[in-house]
């Protein structure tokens, strides 16, 4: 579904991705791991179109995302939960969710039930401004908001950050559900190893802008794989 081939990305002169290749399949959860500053977020930015690649290609459903703007990619079915939540601070929770209507046909412009089932707190706070929410509530809102767009591929950048344990479990269950029920392709950047291991169908480990390991979730138990993640 999503095929990244030899992606390179620069911030000015600094190179953040040095030829990353990766695939995400429908109905699979692909977990991307790596230490701080190795390029995980940069990879996500490249996928959703927030930062152009210097070279390499990204293909989604056979379509080449050369310099397609972010909104086209979102409309093509990429949902995004960014690192740092990026809630619209002055929009209410409801309005934050409604921003996801942009790419939907009129008939589908409603908030899917899964969102409130997953994050009941959002229902209570529909009229509060997004920026007023607590950190964890914002994170929940960010995930909910991505789901409103009915994505085919969901890209999550450290979605569990700042979220209470019980809801982390719910998120895990939800991701499995989305994978199994909707056949969604899920790309998950995570630091939280246990969470990853429980969910992932496959894992990729990044280090200094390159993929240093690719395999199944169980690989994470292998010490030489884990070594990529230690300091």
């Amino acid at each position, binding site marked *: 579904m999503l095929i990244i081939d030899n992606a390179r990305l620069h911030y000015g002169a600094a190179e953040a991705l040095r030829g990353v290749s990766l695939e995400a399949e429908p109905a699979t959860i692909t977990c991307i791991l790596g230490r701080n500053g190795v390029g995980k977020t940069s990879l996500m930015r490249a996928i959703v179109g*927030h930062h152009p690649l210097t070279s390499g290609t990204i293909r989604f459903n056979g379509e080449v995302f050369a310099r397609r*703007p972010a909104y086209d990619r979102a409309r093509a079915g990429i949902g995004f939960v960014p690192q740092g939540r990026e809630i619209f601070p002055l929009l209410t929770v409801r309005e934050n969710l409604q921003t996801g209507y942009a790419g939907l046909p009129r008939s589908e412009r409603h908030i899917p039930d899964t969102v409130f089932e997953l994050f009941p707190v959002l229902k209570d706070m529909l009229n509060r401004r997004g920026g007023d929410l607590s950190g964890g509530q914002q994170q929940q809102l960010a995930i909910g908001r991505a789901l409103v767009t009915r994505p085919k591929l969901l890209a999550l950048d450290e979605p569990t950050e700042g979220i209470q344990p019980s809801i982390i479990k719910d998120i895990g269950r939800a991701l499995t559900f989305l994978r199994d029920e909707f056949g969604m392709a899920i790309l998950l950047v995570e630091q939280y190893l246990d969470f990853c291991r429980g969910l992932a169908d496959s894992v990729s480990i990044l280090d200094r802008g390159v993929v240093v390991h690719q395999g199944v979730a169980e690989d994470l138990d292998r010490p030489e794989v884990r070594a990529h993640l230690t300091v």
Partner: protein
Amino acid sequence: MTVTRSIAALFAVLAVLLSPSMATAQDSDVALRQAIAGLGAEKGYARLREAINVVAQTGDPRAARVLGALTEGDVYRRADDGAVVIVSGRGQQLTLHDPVTGEAIGTAPKSALDKVRVNNSVRRSVRAALGGLTLAAGDPDIRMTAARTLIATPDPDSLAAIEKAISDEEDDAVRDALENARAGAILFSGADPETRIAAIETIRNMGGQQALSLLARMPASPDQGVLQAAEDAAASVQKRLQYWGLGQNIWYGVSLGSVLLLAAIGLAITFGVMGVINMAHGEMVMLGAYTTFTVQEVMRTSFPGLLDWSLPIALPLAFLVAGSVGFALERGVIRFLYGRPLETLLATWGVSLVLQQSVRTLFGPSNREVSNPSFMSGAFQLGEISVTWNRLYIVVFALVVFAVLLYAINRTSLGLRMRAVTQNRRMAAAMGIRTPWVDALTFALGSGIAGIAGVALSQIDNVSPNLGQGYIIDSFMVVVFGGVGNLWGTLIAALSLGVANKFLEPFAGAVLGKILVLVFIILFIQRRPRGLFALKGRAVDA
């Protein structure tokens, strides 16, 4: 309608009204001609006024023709024989008419004619000389005008005429006015104290500045009761006037506020919502005003009948013109500057210079005339407040624009997208919002609104290349005072600054008043550093 025209119309009516009954008298014809000849003989306005009185005193209704023509500036003296003629036509060769019958009596070159010059005092004499007679006119409006004139110039000698008119009058409003006129005349007559006290009561009920002036001017009476009544009446009128004065200040304030609102509301979008320090905002207003001018020019030259429709026609056009310029500006310049809000100041300043100079080159540097359509001309009286139609329309218009915009921003999906985009452009794009399109539309909307504000402002202000410069600072003050990004704040700020200004003006004068308002804004921002309707809480810091 103009002064001269209305007087002329008055005479026309009068002439038609009275002519059948008095058509025959041959000898009066001679007297009239003699009197009219006097109009041409004399030099100086004082003599002319006497001559007018002589003409009027003939009592001949045909005098109306020549007097009407006189106020229109159509009466000339033939240089060779000194005959008084009425002329018509334009250019060098003029058609002459007999001043009594109005029949054409040939033509003459302009150089062979001397104009009988009239000025305001002459026109006033004409009006006064024949004022009383119009009380019998068929049109109640004309009778009303006559009655008003009588109130303003109380004359005991006209009492009898007024009494007669009251008994004949069928229109209630006119009769009331006549009764006031009678009371006024009584004040100045030697009537007995009771009658005068009753008259004072009537005048007191009439109220207003005019009542006050009548009471003040009325000849001193030896009677204590009359004096007391007059004093009380004056005091009570004064008091009422004070309340009305309060109301008047509020109205003026609201009306100034609505002008500020109109000027600022587009900026509330481009600056308030989008964060662009839009120095070219004033020029968008100016474009709207010039669009109005252009529309009126076209109407004037090609469709004079539609002149009254020029504003409704100009509104959408101004929106389109300013909106498209805004659209182009956003696509051409602003879009490269998101995330660098301060740089927008530099670029939009440049744009504003270019727009100003373009308009100057295209339309010339001086003021262009935009007239009020008839439905926006003049005023009506609300108690003691005279409410001008153009201001009233502007207040209503400003509120409508505000309401529509409020709805558009807060209740429509486009509005939601606009707000999302301006809060976090990248994330909005990741949600599938076509950010470039929304950005351009938002800026075009703000500019378009500024454009239609220009249509309204063209009704009360200069239409010149500098128009925008006059509003830009006030607009920023209003938006900031109300709280950036808050439309309600903009509304309240505009109205309250308007009212504050108008309450200060009578005491402090316009200049000091304005200074005080500015100082007030500075102090107020210390109390509320994010404006009147500051958003609070984390959301703001985020």
